[in-house]
Each structure stands twice: as structure tokens, then as C-alpha cells.
């Protein structure tokens, strides 16, 4: 598992490096294909670095960087259904990445999903706290000269960041970047004082849901 995740992370970073190398050419976010004649502004040493190019992780075949085999395994372990039927089905169906939900019916019962295909975010509420669960295959490569002062941990490269109003957890599963964000109304709320609550929530996001687009990409049919 550790090796597999390492390979997945490596794949993402390799794609990111490729995206950086190709950053002078714009790509179609939907397909990852170069857009003819749509050259991005040229970066030179005389101007700040401009980075409109995106390291789109979806590559053929079938979504490329998404590890659909592992995702389908997760889907089957989840029972294959949708434990949150209240989520807008059209938004679920247009999402081209596996959707992760926490095993927490109270939280998912009132949740709302917003999807852009290669990115989705689910907004949920609990008393005094707002929660966002997001997933995407679109990441931007950082310049090599700007390392990040952060420590990824565990097989999924999890990171936690304290925000102005809460905690932000990131991790990579099935080749997809997932985030769990917790926002507290009260600055003294213990759920935001450290990352224990947010990490616990991330650990509970084990239910895999796939809409029509994801099922098609995974070879499961619509």
C-alpha cells in the first residue's frame, strides 16, 4: 500500500513537472490536450512567473491519473450505493473523480455538492462548525525554487494546516487530491484548536461514490 501510494504521488508529481515543462502551452482542462494557437504568456527572467497552465492530472486512458482500479475497489467495499441521496444527482453524475463521503449520516444528511467535473466540493454543517470535503485531479506545479515548509505523513501523504478559522487536511487517495476543511464559528472551539477533529473526519471519509461520469471513466458503464 505504501509503495502503491508512493507510486501514485510520484505520478502526480511527474505530471506536475511535465505541466511545468509544458507551461508555455495552454491545455484544455477537460481533456488535457494542448489548445492549438493558445500559447500562454512567455515567462522570462524579466517578468514575474506566470502560471496559467495547469498540470491536469487526467490523462488517457480513462482518466489517467485516477487509479480507477483502486477506486472501484473502494466503491465495492462501500457497497456501491450512495449513502447521501440528498446530494444533487446531476452534480454527482458530472463528477469525473471518485467522491469520498464520511461514514457519518448526521453530517451527510444535509450536505450539498458543487461540481465542476474534475473538481467537487461538498459543504456540510454541524452545530458551530462548517465542513468542506473536496476532491480534484487538477493541481498546479510549484516552481522548483519554492519548497514548501510542511511535513506530509502516512501512506496518503496527509498534511494539516491551521487556517484563520479552522483546520485544512489534504491527502492523496486513488491518485486524487482530497481535502477536508473544518471552519469553526468560535475561535475557542476545540474542534479547530488542533487538527484532531479534522483528521478524525478525514479518517472517516471511506465511502466511495461514483456518478455516471466517474463510472464511465472507471469502465463500469454509465
Amino acid at each position, binding site marked *: 500500500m505504501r509503495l502503491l501510494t508512493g507510486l501514485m504521488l510520484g505520478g502526480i508529481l511527474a505530471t506536475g513537472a511535465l505541466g511545468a515543462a509544458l507551461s508555455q502551452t495552454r491545455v484544455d482542462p477537460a481533456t488535457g490536450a494542448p489548445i492549438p494557437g493558445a500559447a500562454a504568456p512567455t515567462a522570462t527572467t524579466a517578468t514575474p512567473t506566470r502560471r496559467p497552465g495547469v498540470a491536469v492530472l487526467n490523462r488517457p486512458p480513462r482518466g489517467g491519473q485516477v487509479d480507477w482500479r483502486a477506486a472501484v475497489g473502494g466503491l465495492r467495499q462501500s457497497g456501491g450505493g450512495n449513502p447521501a441521496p440528498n446530494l444533487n444527482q446531476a452534480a454527482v453524475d458530472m463528477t469525473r473523480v471518485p467522491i469520498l463521503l464520511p461514514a457519518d449520516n448526521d453530517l451527510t444528511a444535509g450536505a450539498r455538492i458543487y461540481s465542476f467535473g474534475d473538481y467537487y466540493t461538498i459543504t456540510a454543517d454541524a452545530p458551530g462548525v462548517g465542513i468542506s470535503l473536496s476532491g480534484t485531479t487538477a*493541481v498546479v506545479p510549484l516552481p522548483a525554487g519554492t519548497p514548501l515548509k*510542511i511535513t506530509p505523513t502516512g501512506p496518503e501523504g496527509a498534511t494539516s494546516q491551521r487556517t484563520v478559522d479552522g483546520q485544512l487536511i489534504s491527502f492523496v487517495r486513488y491518485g486524487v487530491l482530497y481535502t477536508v476543511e473544518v471552519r469553526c464559528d468560535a475561535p475557542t472551539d476545540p474542534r479547530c484548536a488542533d487538527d484532531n477533529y479534522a483528521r478524525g473526519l478525514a479518517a472517516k471519509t471511506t465511502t466511495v461514490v461514483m456518478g455516471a461520469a466517474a463510472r464511465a471513466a472507471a469502465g463500469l458503464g454509465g
Partner: protein
Amino acid sequence: MRKLLILSPLVLALALAACEDKTTPAAPGPGGEIKTPASPEPGPPTPDDAPSDGGAEQPSSEPNPPAPGPPVLPADPPAPSPVSFDHNPPGVMPNGQGHGYLDRTVWSPAMCWPLQDAAFANSQVYGHGGGMGPAGTSQCDSANYSLPWRDNFCEARSRDNPLCAGGGTGHQGQDIRPATCKKNQYWAVAAEKGVITDIGSYTVTLVGSASPHRTYRYLHMQMAALSVKEGDAVVAGQKLGKVANDFGGTPTTIHLHFELRAGVAGTTTDGKPVVLHTFLPPYMSLAEAYQRKLNGTAC
């Protein structure tokens, strides 16, 4: 580094006032039926009240800022951007206020200037009237409402900000004061086309429709009279709410705290690959967006 052409705040305000006013809400966006009560319907602005000098912008539970160290500069700093108004270089922190950062990427190159009018990017904590500013001063001091701009993305805070030098902590966004020291008067607008995905007690989150789906967070608006609610699709430049000092009961100055985030792939300071959603410095994107606004270019 500063440019020679210095425009007065009045000129800036006049130039910006001529820009397009986008108030028509867009059609409902993708996904998202709303099951819980959204933000209150927009109501009449609350009367102006005397601004209080707070400037904390950090919860009382947050420890004091970490001990500052020397500012950092990139080994080969790029030339300044083609911005004609007076602004300090990106990533540079005054001594004793944080470590700065090296990145000079314009992370949102087509971004719309997120206010309708002229404004002043600077530090509200270390500025006049701020919690760590000159003693006995007011947030309404003219020093806070004049050029040059200054970057405070990596200003000393205990919050995580992995791109910042030193301990990887910092402010995570850019503070922007509105045109004058009055709250509930100046509109904050959408930085790009997208969907309002969350409204918190003092935060509004906008996710861009276009890849890489940048996340913009607007803090300290007048939350009781927002022009948007969760699930709204917005166009670039659309009014979101008015700049205020809402902070969940904690005092702060009148300003917009503006954050830019995205999923990034990079390397840690100890050489490990990492993929995460994190904060990106918005200063260069803001400066270029502001210049476009001054030039009369529509968002």
C-alpha cells in the same frame, strides 16, 4: 523597485468608479441544492459606526506571532510587474514582521480586482491602529489609506503557510483596506466566475469554475447584508458584499482579508514530494488585476 508614477487615491477612485457595475446575479450554477438555511437575505446597510481600533485578526486563543527573522529575497529576483501605481515588491516583509517568501508566480493571471473601488493593500495588524502598530494611533490614519501597497501574505502569525520562509507560518492572505475608513460602504466583488460554496460566520468562499478551480476566501465583509448565498453562481466582478470588520466577535479593523488557494504539487523543504491544497500568495495577482482596473480593462 517602486514605480515613478504615483496616482493619488482620488484619481484611483475616479478611475475605478468608471468601471462596469455588475449586480445581476447569474443563473443557478452546477449542482448544489441547498438543504440548510443560507445567509440572510440582503438588507439595508447598517449605519456607519465609529470604527474601533482592533487589528487583531487572530483569535484570542492564538499564540503570539513567532519570533521574526530576517526577510528573504529570491536569489534572482524578477523585474517588477508592469504595474504603474506605487507598490512595494512582493514577498518582502519589513524587519521584525515576518520572514517573507520567495515565490513570484502570478497565480491568478486573469483575476478580477476583488473590490469595486480603489483600495489599499497593506497590513492592518502592523499598520496604524493595528494590534501591533504604532501606539496611540488610529486605523483611520491617512498612512493606512495611501500608497504604496505592501505584501503581508507571510506576515508573522502562528497559522500554517507552507510557502513562507522561516517556520512555514504566516498570514495566509492579503489585507486590503477599502477606499476610505468606512465600513459597510465598499463592495467586494467576485475575483472570477465561479460558485459560492460556503458562507461562514465571517467568511465567504468562492471556487472558480475554470481549472484549477482556485479557491478565493473573503473575510470580514458585512455578513448580515451579503448579496450572495451559498450555491449562487457568480460572474467575475459580481457584487458579493460590503467590506466591514466582521470577525465573529473579535475586534478587527475595517478591511478585506483576501485568500487564494489551490491544489499544488511540489517538494518540501527536506526534499519530499507533496501534493496538497494550500495558500498561494495573491499579491502579484492583485497588483496586476488592480492595474487592469486602472487601465479600464473589464474583468
